[in-house]
């Protein structure tokens, strides 16, 4: 288990590095056809993925905690 985890983390670091590098190289050397201005930022998708994921978790948990989540027998009790 420990070894597999270590391999996975090495893979993760490689893919972080590779996707960022590819993003930068693509902006520099390829003729992409961006539709929106932010597509010219080489790491936009990376930032959006990270921030978006944190946002989804925090916002949904807040919604659930304060409003939507109820005990399991909520409907039976009423």
């Amino acid at each position: 288990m420990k070894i597999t985890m270590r391999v996975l983390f090495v893979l993760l670091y490689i893919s972080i590095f590779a996707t960022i590098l590819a993003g930068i190289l693509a902006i520099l050397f390829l003729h992409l056809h961006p539709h929106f201005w932010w597509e010219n930022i080489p790491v936009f998708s990376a930032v959006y993925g990270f921030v978006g994921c944190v946002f989804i978790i925090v916002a949904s948990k807040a919604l659930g905690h304060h409003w939507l989540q109820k005990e399991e027998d909520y409907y039976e009790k009423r």
Partner: protein
Amino acid sequence: MIEWFHPGFVYLFGAFLVPLLKGKVKQAYVLLLPAIAFVILLLISKGVFGEGPFWQFSFMGYELTLGRIDPLSMVFAYIFVIASFCMFLYAIHIKEDWQHVAALLYIGSTLGVVFAGDLITLFFFWEIMAWASLFIVWYGKTKAASGAGFRYIMVHSFGGVCLLAGILIHLHNGGSIAFDSFTWGIGSEYLGVYLIFLAFIINAAVPPLGAWLADAYPEASVTGAVFLTAFTTKSAIYVLIRGFPGVEILIWLGAIMALYGVVFAVLENDIRRLLAYHIISQVGYMVAGVGMGVFGMAAGNMAINGATAHAFCHILYKAVLFMGMGAVIEVTGRRKLTELGGIYKYMPITFWLYMIGAFSISGFPLFNGFISKTMVVQASAMWGYASIWLMLELASVGTFLHTGLKLPWGVWFARDTPVCEAREPPWNMLAAMGIAAFLCTLLGVYPAILYNMLPYTVHYEPYAPGHVIAMSQLLVFTFIAFWLLRDKLHGTPTITLDTDWFYRIPGKKVIKFCEGPLMATAKYMDNRLMGMAVFFRGIPPKSQTVVETRIDNAFHERVPALLNFQNIYNKIKEDKVREISYNVIYILIAMILLLIFVLFGVVTKL
């Protein structure tokens, strides 16, 4: 020249032979039916029967078309038939014949909807679809399934009535019986069109009308839920593409829907309900695609192609996902994230097949979600809808987070020691998952197979470097955020309120009111009226009570006995299903009578 044969009728008629067959013959038979339907579709594609339309009947002055053939109906028919084969393989071991019958009727009527060329035919199959799927929900055989089934059919009956009323008003206002794209506008003359639209988006589970989906699907049996995932929502996408391409409100509804499903998936503890919320989320992409599908524009064609392709791919990977979680429930008997974890070592094959579905839904390059979802996103970029683009990308993040990370993490890992014993599911379940997972990968690697079937010519390069790099960054960094916050993502033993609250809580109050104060008032009025009648007509009190008792009997015992769905459900539970067939026949007769009345009404009115 061979006469055309409706692929849907292979299922509809084929269904009635199932109870007569036994053992291995029956198992082979339910797999044979999709195979026959598939061969018919191939023959249609080859043009063996000619161009179509087929099976046109003149009925009370209307030209009904049961077989409209064009690229759009064919691509949906293909995926429904292919998916049904995998699903029957998954369900081949179950003993209840009538569950097969319900599934066959459900799929057959969905094909009926797909090939329907006119609104009356559409309505007819639409209703069979709703009722057949109800029985699949009820075959969950629990109290929860019973309740969810009742709520399910309540919503769908409402949708069906909207559809019927919409069709009648549409015809009355001089609309055509043909099922083509409706003229959309603002004003009371479009009331019929609005009602038809409402019926369609109810079936597409668009919030706030979509709570029935996450309410009912997870309550079906392990095998039944797999059938439910594919047909109702995707046939709704088909009819929306037919009837309402380019209706702008769909873009916004779709984008909201994509995020709505994601938010609820964070909160959900039931593993299949979590996946059900991701059906809503994924169908959101398709709904948005339909909304952007304005005729005759490059971006519009891209959007319609995207919606169609995504429906095709979605059916495959969602089947894999539901099959995977179904397998977990089958071998462990547990369905909550809080009660699962650490069982990877018992079922690695199931895990990896599930992950192919998860990679597909998340849009990993080389899997089929990537080649279809990005078409819809691309269409939003071509239109210049910045906020829609951002919402859809955010929904992609959420999809990978839940289906690809949180759910498999929570079910198969998350704990150091397994919570319970487990094993791989029976061979047929694995084989069904394997076939569907293979198709997911095949389409991801050779998108041309799917692109050649789409309604418009495709000018889209999914593996353009920009797309691949952006998607890879998105997924890798979603993973990092997940890993950092994974302790926050454990399931909690709660349920989540959805819009079904509005008919579950006030509904109960209404019934309590009816049973209590309303009944008391009614009884009081009854007595007073009878007293008055006695007084005025001089009826001796004794005969009056006899008459009253008889009337009471008729209304309180006989009529409810005919239409007592609770009874039907109880009988399903006790496996006395043969008795139910009588009640089903009553319902069918009632429905046919209703249809005839309606048609008479239409004909005499016009």
